Each structure stands twice: as C-alpha cells, then as structure tokens.
C-alpha cells in the first residue's frame, strides 16, 4: 500500500494534504470564533462607550429659599391648599434661589434670568415640591438641595455637548456652558455616580437627565419570572411528551412541524394573539407584566421545545435501554437519565429563549406595554392581582428612548442596553453554571 514503508517521522504527501485540510478546518473554527468574538467586542464597545456615562449625572447644589408667601399663602400648612401650588410655582422659586446662590458665590453672567433658570432640570421643581409636601415644616426656611442639572449641561461635562455645538443648539448656549463651568469651579455643580438611573421611573422627552429604568427593570423582572415559571416547564414537558411518549404518527409529525413553525411566527403576531386572548377574552389588565409574560412565554416556547427535543434526540438509546432493563418505567428513565443528559441543550434553549424574551419589543406593542409609565408596578395588588399593574420593560424603554428627539436619550438608551445585558447575564448565570455541571461525554 502507499504508506507501506514510510517513516512515521516524515509525513507523506497524502497525509500532508489531509493535514493541511485539517489545519484549514481548524482555522475555520478559530476564524468563526474570532468573527463572533470580534463582532461581540465591537458591539459591546460601542454600547459601553456611549452608555456608561448614563450611570453618572450632573447635579447642582442650590440653597433653596422656601418662602411662605409663594408656597403656602394661607400659612396654615393645609396640604390640600399647598398642593394648589404647582411645579410651575416651584420652578420660579428655584430660579430665584439659583440666582441668589450664584450671587453668594460671586458668579456673574450676561444671560437672562430665564435662561439661567434653564440650567436646572425640569425635574427639579417636582423634587422640591414633593419634599415640601412631605415636610411642610420646611416652608419659610432655606435648605440645600442637590438638583439635577439640565441635560445639555450634563452632556457638556460628559463631552457630548461642546461649545461649538452649543452655539448652534437652540436649547443651550455657550454662555450657559460657561456659567456651568463657573458653577463647577465654585463647587456648586458636580458630576457623580447616578443610581437614580437604575431606580427612577421614566421621564418625559424634556427631561432626559431624569429618565431612569426603575419601572422597566421591575416590569422586565416580573415578566421574566412569569416566563421562567411557565415557559421552561411547559416547554420541557411538551418536548418530553412529543419525543419520548407520543406515538410516532402523522399527528405527531404535524405537531412537530407546527412547533417549529411557531418559532418562525413574527413576534408581533404573538402580540395580536395576546391582545385577543389575554386582554379581550380573559380580561387581564392591559400593559401588565402578567400579560406580557404570558405572551413572551408563548413566544419562547418553540425555542425551548426545539432545543430540548434536539437534545433529547441526541441521547443514545442504550442509556434508555439500560434504565428500562432494570425495571424503570419510561417516565423514570426519562427523568432520571435522559433529561440530565439532555440538560445542556435544554439550558441552552432556555438561555437563548430568555435572551429573546428579554429583548423583545414588538409583541409588547399590541398589549400596551410600549408605553410611558411613571408609577412603579406592585408585584401584587388586590385589584390587579399578581403582576397586574401597568409597567414597561427594558427593551421597550430602549426602543422609546432611541426614538426621542433629545440627543440626551441616546446615552440613556445605551445605558439601558448595558443594564439589559447585565440583567441577561445575571439571569443566565445559573443556567450557564448548571449547564457546565451537566456537560459530560460518554
């Protein structure tokens, strides 16, 4: 034969060719990993680059005078009366206080009072108002507040806004930025860590600096609880039935094809379905994480089923035989032996399915979760039941923020994406660890 007398130390021509093919093949593998990792690196850097700054925020420290004349004309501290003073009233209080604080610090500017007041976020009056309503005693005193600076000012300290761009910008001016710098020099303005980004609710289009992810994180959390509790067991259960127990006939073929087909149904169609079944027929609350979770469960099921069935299929029959042979029932052989061996694939399906469920916006459009929501949903309420109060979700928040006109929301959206990825990793970490534990060769 061709290789009859060749030395092992020298590689013959054919082997060389095959080894070259081997090296190529391996290189393709490495290449594939590199492509994937590179894509990941690029995407992550771009997200991190533009999003990390969302976790820092610029604050103004203003010594706010809280004059009784303006905030409680009656002087009796009756809350019902005090409420009549709206945030518009508080805004003028803040303006005056800022001017005074500036004067105290010896900072002067050419700008009009109205423009100076624009340095303060539109969120600030509400902050102060809430504080005053909660502590009516403070009226008549002066107290120091750390208030959000307006978005462009914040952007200036994060490098998003420059003097040149401000000159063209209708919403700020170089003078304002100059003033902000002076305030910073005087210690009245500071850019620091911003936990509110994670805990505050969304804010309207005029207040990018105040917008937070609190409601969205809560909503996503609730939905993922629903999805995890329903999709994984239902998905695994139906795969087990179809793969192990169901008779193999046309019907089960039909079901099999049908489930793969469900995976290809555009996610918005699940929204249509959810609207029809859960909201119109079952009369669950719209915009609620429960409905969202149910819709996402239906959407995730095919992914979990397909991957579970694929891994159940790949368990060698000899393992089943061994269990049946010692008198285990089919059920026992599946749950004791086959399922643990199929676990890595099931967990992969879960990881991918949850990733999809966590990042999906389209089906939520039709069930009212793509929304502006400022009230934190409770996990349970007597009216709304479990997860029944209106909320949004992380992808929805991202989607909304990327649509907003104010460029300040670009940073927020990227920050939200970072949060979503962290959320995803945190959610999957158990699955990833479990999967490593179950991985074995035989």
């Amino acid at each position, binding site marked *: 034969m061709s290789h009859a007398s060749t030395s092992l130390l020298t590689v013959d021509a054919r082997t060389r060719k095959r080894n070259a093919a081997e090296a190529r093949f391996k290189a393709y593998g490495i290449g594939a*990993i590199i492509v994937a990792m590179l894509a*990941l690196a690029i995407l992550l850097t*771009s997200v991190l680059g533009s999003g990390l700054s969302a976790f820092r925020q610029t604050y103004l420290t203003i010594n706010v005078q809280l004059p009784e004349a303006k905030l409680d004309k009656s002087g009796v501290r009756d809350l019902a009366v005090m409420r009549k003073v709206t945030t518009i009233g508080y805004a003028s209080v803040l303006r005056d206080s800022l001017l005074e604080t500036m004067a105290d610090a010896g900072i002067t500017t050419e700008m009009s009072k109205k423009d100076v007041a624009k340095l303060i976020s539109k969120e600030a009056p509400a902050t102060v108002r809430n504080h005053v309503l909660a502590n009516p005693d403070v009226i008549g005193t002066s107290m120091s507040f750390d208030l959000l600076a307006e978005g462009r000012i914040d952007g200036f300290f994060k490098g998003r806004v420059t003097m040149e761009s401000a000159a063209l910008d209708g919403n700020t001016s170089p003078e304002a930025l100059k003033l902000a710098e002076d305030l910073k020099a005087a210690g009245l303005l500071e850019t620091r860590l911003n936990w509110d980004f994670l805990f505050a609710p969304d804010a309207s289009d005029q207040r990018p600096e105040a917008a937070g992810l609190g409601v969205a994180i809560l909503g996503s959390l609730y939905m993922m609880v629903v999805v995890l509790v329903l999709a994984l067991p239902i998905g695994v259960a139906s795969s087990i*039935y179809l793969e192990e127990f*169901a008779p193999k006939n046309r019907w089960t073929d039909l*079901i099999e094809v049908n489930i793969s087909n469900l*995976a290809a*149904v555009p996610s918005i169609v699940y929204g249509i379905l959810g609207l029809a079944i859960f909201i119109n027929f*079952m009369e669950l609350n719209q915009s609620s994480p429960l409905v969202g979770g149910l819709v996402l469960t239906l959407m995730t099921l095919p992914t979990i089923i397909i991957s579970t069935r694929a891994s159940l299929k790949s368990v060698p029959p000899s393992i089943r035989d061994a269990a049946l042979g010692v008198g285990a029932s089919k059920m026992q052989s599946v749950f004791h032996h086959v399922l643990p061996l199929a676990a890595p694939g099931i967990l992969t399906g879960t990881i991918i399915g949850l990733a999809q469920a966590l990042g999906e916006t389209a089906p939520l459009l039709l069930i009212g979760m793509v929304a502006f929501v400022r009230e934190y949903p409770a996990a349970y309420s007597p009216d709304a039941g479990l997860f029944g109060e209106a909320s949004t979700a992380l992808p929805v928040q991202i989607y909304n923020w990327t649509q907003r006109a104010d460029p300040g929301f670009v940073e927020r959206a990227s920050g939200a994406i970072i949060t979503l990825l962290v959320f995803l990793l945190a959610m999957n970490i158990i699955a990833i660890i479990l999967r490593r534990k179950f991985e074995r060769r035989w």
Partner: protein
Amino acid sequence: MSLSLSVLLAIALSATAYFMAPRHALRFVAGDRRKLASLPKQYGLSAGLSVFLPAILIALIGGLGGLAPASLPYIVIAVAAVALVLSIWQSRPEFIARNRAESIITLVLIAASGVAILTTVGIVLSMLFETANFFQDYDWKDFFFSTEWSPNFRGDSALGILPLLWGTLYISLIALAFAVPIGLFAAIYLSEYAGPRLRSIAKPAIEILAGIPTIVYGLFALVTVGPFLRDYFAVPMGFGQSASSVLTAGLVMGVMLIPFVSSLSDDIFNAVPQTMRDGSLGLGATKSETIRQVVVPAALPGIVGAVLLAASRAIGETMIVVLGAGAAARLSLNPFEAMTTVTVKIVSQLTGDTDFASPETLVAFALGLTLFVITLGLNVFALYIVRKYREQYE
C-alpha cells in the same frame, strides 16, 4: 374569598396530601417501605397531584373569560379537600401509586404539548377573520401575484406580497449563509478542539450576541456596515448607491444568529458518544474528517433544529431589516439594493397611521397568515430532510 387565595389553599392542601399519603401507606406496613407497591414518594406525588390538578383546572377554566361565579373559590377548595381525603384513603400498600402518578404526569405532559397546539389555533384564528375582511376589500389575485407593493393613504394601494416574500427570502438566506457556517464552525471548534477554559468563556460570550437588543444591531448596520459596504463594494463595483441593502441587513442579522447555531449545535456535538469518534480516529481519520463524516451526520437532527431556529429568527426580525435594508419593497437580484421583508411590513402596517379598518392595515393579517403557511411548508421540508438523512447511533 378571592380566587388566588383559594388556589393558594389548594396548593397547601396538595402539599398536605404529598406529605400525608406516604405516611398513611407506611402505617399499614409498620414503616417498612419495601412492602409498599411503590416508593413512598410516589404515593406522595400521586396524592399531591390528584389534589392539585383538579383544583387548579377548575380554577383555570372557571377563571377564564371572567365567567367565574362568586362561589368558584369555594368549589375549588371543596374539590381539593375531597380529593385530599380520597387520595389519602387510597394510599394503601397494594395501591400502585407510581402508575397513578405517571398517568397524571403523562396527562400534564400532553396538556403541555397542547399549549403549542392551542397557540397555533389561536394564531390562525386571530388572523383569519381580519384576513377574510382584507380579502373582501382587496383582490386576492393582486395580493398573491402582484409584484408591486406600495400602500398609500388614498385607498388605491398596490399590496402585492411577492416583493416582500422575495426580500424575506433573500435577507434570510444571506443571514443564514453567514450564520450557519460560522455558527457551525464555532460549535465544532468549541466542542471538538477547544479546551474547557476557552469553552466555558467563549460559549456564554457568544450567547450574549443573541441577547443584544436588535436595535443595537440595527444601528450598527445603519451607521457602520451599510456605508462601509456602499463605499467599498457597491460603488466601486457599480452596484448602486444605496447605504441600506439586503447584504447589510443579512450580514448583521447573521451576526445575531451565530449563537442560535453555535450553542445548540455545540451541545448536540457533545452528546455524540466518544466511541463514534474513536472508531473513526482509530481508522486513521483526521479530526476534521471525523467531525465532517461522523460527528456532524450523527448530530444532524439537532443541527437542523438549530438552523431552523436561526431561520425562524431571521424571518421574524424587524429592527435590523428596517435599519439595515430599508423599507422599500423591491424585486431585485442586486444584494446592494434596499429591500424589505414581510415581517417588517406586518409591523409597520399594524403600527402605522392608516385607518384601522382599511386594507392597508388589514393586509398585515393576510401577510402574517401567508407567511405562516409558507414557513409551514419549509418546516415540512426540513422534517423530511431530517428523516431522510438521520443517522441514529446506539
């Protein structure tokens, strides 16, 4: 009493049954579990399930559609209580609890598969009526055979599905042509070549790609990939000026799909018994020959599953297509041209500003149903392929 409270109570009762039943049975045999017909925990399981399931079923059925009578919670509890007594009474040594437990579990498993069926029925029904409404206003021949898609607000829209189908097919094919080889090779490398360290890092890392919100991919396509392809390929090669193109969307979507193929295939490769590889290596095959000719064919059903999943995602994706390929429906072979997909149009027609009873909006349902039927056909084909080429190891 509220329904949820009664369900909680029913759960508590079934937990009681779970703990009581084995004890009751053991009492007859003086605590010697070997004399029981089934394992003690199977008595528990059987009893617990017999209590829980009827109660929850009644609660669910009664609670659906808000037709719950005020007495429903009490009925639920009564049923649970009766089942509790019965199931504990039934727990005698000669009672084969395993069979009971297993038949209940089988029912649960069947019910679980029923969810998928009901979902399908629901999807078809929820689209069928509106589709019928659409075809009352719009000629089905134009819908299926017209090559023009241009809805407008004046009511004389052209709503031909062909350009959308073509776009769907084209973009998905490009995405799969990118993702399947890369995903497969990544899976092969991870499961067959890589050490455990690299594997334990790279696999979850690649899975992140599936979790990045599609808007990020979309913007990446729009801002980076699109102009790059235009400036370095399309324009020099004379393929046009468009920054958004089928190729852009396809490639970027391909990146997103990599983990769908790689992770699942990797798990399946891992499940192929080592003796298969040994058999091949022992004949002097190289690792790559072993993989290509033994491991991959043996893992074929799983791979097809993974690819189907990826294809499904490709068909269902909107954001990347909108930002990467544009929104223009077009029938063209040029991969550097803007096109769009069925799914994108479903979303945009549903979320647009057109009159909700007009064909322009209703067409979304017809599109959805048509897509459903077409993908069904593709899946039948995939099943056939798997059946034909499946290699079942022992």
